[in-house]
């Protein structure tokens, strides 16, 4: 049977993190969704230490695994490749396979597709750990500590407790950190839902974003999707993706280096688009819940 949704998870040398990410997509963890409703496309982007093909596909009946041999270093090609393979009419694009989801992301996103003809649905991104991983990795936060934290909340039985051990992922533009979180207009996400036909209409990811990790590939993709007249943006409330520490391209580097990186990414954006990157100001709609006080706290204290 043809699934309604195809999740594209791009992984690169992340054996530890990717298995948990996949596990957070499985139907025994995700609420109110039938296994037949979706498939998971795991795209190994030329990893030197890939996942074990067989053990990945044995995790669930709907998992398809693709190993890309010697691909471009940006995930743009991997996403476009998987989108072609996808059987669902709706895509969920997860550019960084180290993100775990809360348990209501999939069904809530699909509900939005029954409300609107052409929605873009986003779940905001969080870091696991006591602070932004760009900072905490210099004060001892590491994979072992993350494993320990995840064990304390028994995350697979109670996925919303991820909010207890994570913080929102947000850049401090000019040292400004917004006080309130849930209603902030996002400019990218590690979990974007879009109709496959809409993704194709803008010819998918722009493979000219060829910096390892993609640079502004996803902000660019998202911005172009927002700019379509047909699309309606929805941000989920009380649902999120949580980044596991793994030495990723832009997330796990020091703050100074991150700013330099952002400048390099921006320069590439300007060279491709001929203008500075700007956050879309298209109206945003919201749907979700507040699963616990830790999620709700982000509205009160930031």
């Amino acid at each position, binding site marked *: 049977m043809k699934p309604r949704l195809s999740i594209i998870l791009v992984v690169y040398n992340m054996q530890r993190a990717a298995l948990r990410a996949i596990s957070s997509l499985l139907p025994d963890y995700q609420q109110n969704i039938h296994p037949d409703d979706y498939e998971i496309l795991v795209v190994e982007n030329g990893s030197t230490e890939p996942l074990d093909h067989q053990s990945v596909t044995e995790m669930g009946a709907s998992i398809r695994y693709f190993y890309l041999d010697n691909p471009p270093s940006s995930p743009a090609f991997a996403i476009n490749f998987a989108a072609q393979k996808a059987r669902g009419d709706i895509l969920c694009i997860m550019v960084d396979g180290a993100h775990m989801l809360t348990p209501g992301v999939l069904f809530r996103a699909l509900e939005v597709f029954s409300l609107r003809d052409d929605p873009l649905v986003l779940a905001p991104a969080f870091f696991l750990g006591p602070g932004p991983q760009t900072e905490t990795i210099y004060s001892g936060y590491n994979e072992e500590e993350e494993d320990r934290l995840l064990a304390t909340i028994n995350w697979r039985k109670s996925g919303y407790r991820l909010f207890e051990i994570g913080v929102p992922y947000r850049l401090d533009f000019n040292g400004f950190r917004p006080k309130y979180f849930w209603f902030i207009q996002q400019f990218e996400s590690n979990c974007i839902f879009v109709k496959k036909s809409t993704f194709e209409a803008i010819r998918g990811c722009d493979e000219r974003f060829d910096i390892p990790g993609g640079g502004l590939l996803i902000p660019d993709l998202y911005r172009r999707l927002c700019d379509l007249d047909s699309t309606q943006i929805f941000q989920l409330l009380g649902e999120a993706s949580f980044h596991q520490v793994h030495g990723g391209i832009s997330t796990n580097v020091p703050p100074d280096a991150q700013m330099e990186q952002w400048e390099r990414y921006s320069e590439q954006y300007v060279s491709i688009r001929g203008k500075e990157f700007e956050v879309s100001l298209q109206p945003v709609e919201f749907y979700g819940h*507040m699963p616990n006080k830790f999620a709700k706290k982000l509205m009160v204290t930031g």
Partner: protein
Amino acid sequence: MNPGPATNPELSVIVIGYNMRRELPRTLLSLSRPYQRGCEDINYEVLLMENGSTKPLEDSVISSLGGHFHHYNLESPPSSPAYAINRGAEIASSDVLGIMIDGAHILTPGIVSWVHRAFQIFKNPIVLTRYFFLGPDDQSISAENGYSQEREDALLQRISWPSDGYELFRIGIPLYDGAPRASWLNPLTESNCFFVRRETFEAMGGANELFDFPGGGLLNFDMYNECLRRKDVEPVLLIGEGSFHQYHGGTTTNTTPEDRKSKVRVYKQQYKQIRGIEPVLCDRNWSYLGHQPNKPSEIHMRKRPPSVARHGI
């Protein structure tokens, strides 16, 4: 555009009015097409139930709004709006009932379409809109500082209402209800515009007519708390939409803070007599649906209380 008489409407909004010739035209206009946006394909009707008004609204006002508006005058009804709500529910044609216990509330322009969406997502929701006061503060306070119907009219004129209904957020404040800050995520203890399935309304016995104080006492709270107590009902709060109370000398809203407190004490006693428990909001996991139509609708960015001077009144 007048779509003609509603046949098989999907939503029926029951508005209770009592001697509100000044307020009702605005309330009803805010329920009309084309004020309500994005509802071209939604078939809905509005029932104005005059609860024994000595000065009911002229029929011409109703007929000018379109064929989906209906006007009923109840003669010598009980002074509580409970009976009028039940009577409206009997007359209403659709399976989803919207209840506005106080006809003095102006709505924002997305309520019909967002309620409709909520009923697409949820099987059996109660959809609530947040309660606001027009003017610079809770009206029991602002009235003491000179707020009046004339000032309210001037405020509405200043935002050129009804040209953009979301401008109401600019001239009103949310009911804080004891919360230190406003937030779209705070649960409500009172909503003057909520929607439930008829089945659910009937299963809880409709509006309980034992709440017999003029204005209903805690009837509004009781109706939706009874819904929340039913585990099959999913509470949904709209974000970025609201109902705005016009100043009209209402039973509890437009008195002094002291008078209001003593009235609420009596209402709570009656609630306890009828239900056998304290009036405590049922603790449920709320869902949220909506948008932030403009800057002033970002109510979490506000400080309480806003100064009277800011509004120039």
